[in-house]
């Protein structure tokens, strides 16, 4: 069995984007883009490209450092540490931004990729489609559990054998209600369910 986790707001106890935006004073731009995305007016891929355009000029090392400081859900973190071989992080975020976080979490991670020159993102190379990672593990014969909270987790959850929508940081996207197997709003209950699944 493989348990795939979205990162932002699922494993992190805070959304990472506002943390970066606040530090660099681009909250308004990011907040507007996020609102448009959440409402479904801007599709996720376009939103991500626009997000990278806003944040790409900012120093990669500083973003990674900021994200490293974002708190994680402690019980969930402990669960992942105890089951590192079964757990996988699947995030649309750029790998260069998440380096610090990933070093801390220390399990297999899939991200979007960018070319970095002089500590700046100069080109977006790939945007992760989470459902492809689900399919990859399923093709390898694994039973796949997907844990996420956003509209961009929808397809991955639809492809997974078991899907858990979480509302730990904020309510899960309503679109997930139509396809998920479970909805859980509490870290303790989530870890209990994950242990029951293993």
């Amino acid at each position, binding site marked *: 069995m493989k348990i795939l986790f979205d990162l932002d707001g699922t494993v992190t106890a805070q959304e990472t984007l506002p943390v970066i935006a606040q530090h660099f004073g681009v909250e308004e731009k990011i907040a507007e883009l996020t609102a448009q995305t959440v409402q479904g007016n801007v599709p996720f891929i376009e939103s991500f490209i626009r997000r990278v355009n806003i944040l790409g000029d900012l120093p990669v090392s500083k973003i990674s450092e900021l994200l490293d400081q974002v708190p994680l859900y402690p019980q969930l973190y402990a669960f992942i540490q105890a089951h590192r071989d079964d757990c996988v992080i699947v995030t649309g975020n750029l790998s260069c931004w998440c380096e610090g976080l990933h070093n801390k979490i220390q399990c297999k991670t899939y991200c979007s990729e960018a070319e970095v020159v002089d500590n700046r993102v100069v080109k977006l190379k790939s945007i992760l489609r989470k459902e492809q990672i689900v399919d990859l593990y399923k093709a390898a014969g694994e039973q796949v559990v997907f844990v996420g909270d956003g509209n961009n987790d929808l397809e991955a959850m639809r492809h997974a054998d078991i899907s858990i929508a979480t509302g730990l940081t904020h309510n899960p996207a309503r679109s997930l209600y139509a396809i998920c197997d479970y*909805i859980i709003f*509490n870290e303790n209950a989530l870890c209990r369910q994950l242990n029951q699944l293993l």
Partner: protein
Amino acid sequence: MSAIKSVVISCAGIGSRLGLGLTKALVKINNRSLISWQLELFKDVEDVRIVVGFQANDIIEEVLKYRKDVTFIFNHRYFETKTGASFYLGARHAYDHVLEWDGDLLVHPDDVKMILEQEGEFICYADKTSEEAVFVKTDEKGNVLEFSRECGDYEWTGPACLSKEHLAYCSNNVYNMFEPFLPMRGIKVRAYDIDTYQDYMRVSEIVKDWKI
């Protein structure tokens, strides 16, 4: 903490026979929703699992007012399936020996305490109150021998407890899941289904004396 660690409350149905236009979990019994009565009765149960379908958002919102560490399970096919499917979905990843509880069932608080202390598999039943029920036939020790639509000694109300090794998908009624394993230990309880408006009025009277 109770001996029983996982309880599955099936709240996915549309409650069409009651006629109040609400899924039964949200029906108010003496100013509090049916689901809030159940959550109070299960406050010492570690793993409360609520199966939702019709009006899922409203049920989730109501439950979260009282308890956050609930696992919600979706029965997306609630319109085509019966309580057996909801119980299966709710129980398949639970702790072993799962207590099945219909969302429209209220049981006397003293009996709930007694039920939660039981170990192993069992089936609960109550005195007959309806002509259109499913009945149970029992032996002299109260063990359940058979379910019947025609006649029996008591009325099948639930709850019932099943070992996970006996759990198999069933789109039919939950009692059909127990039939292959009869005879099974029976326990008589003071249990009240809320299927019709008459049931609703009757239960509203009964619970006035309950102290929980």
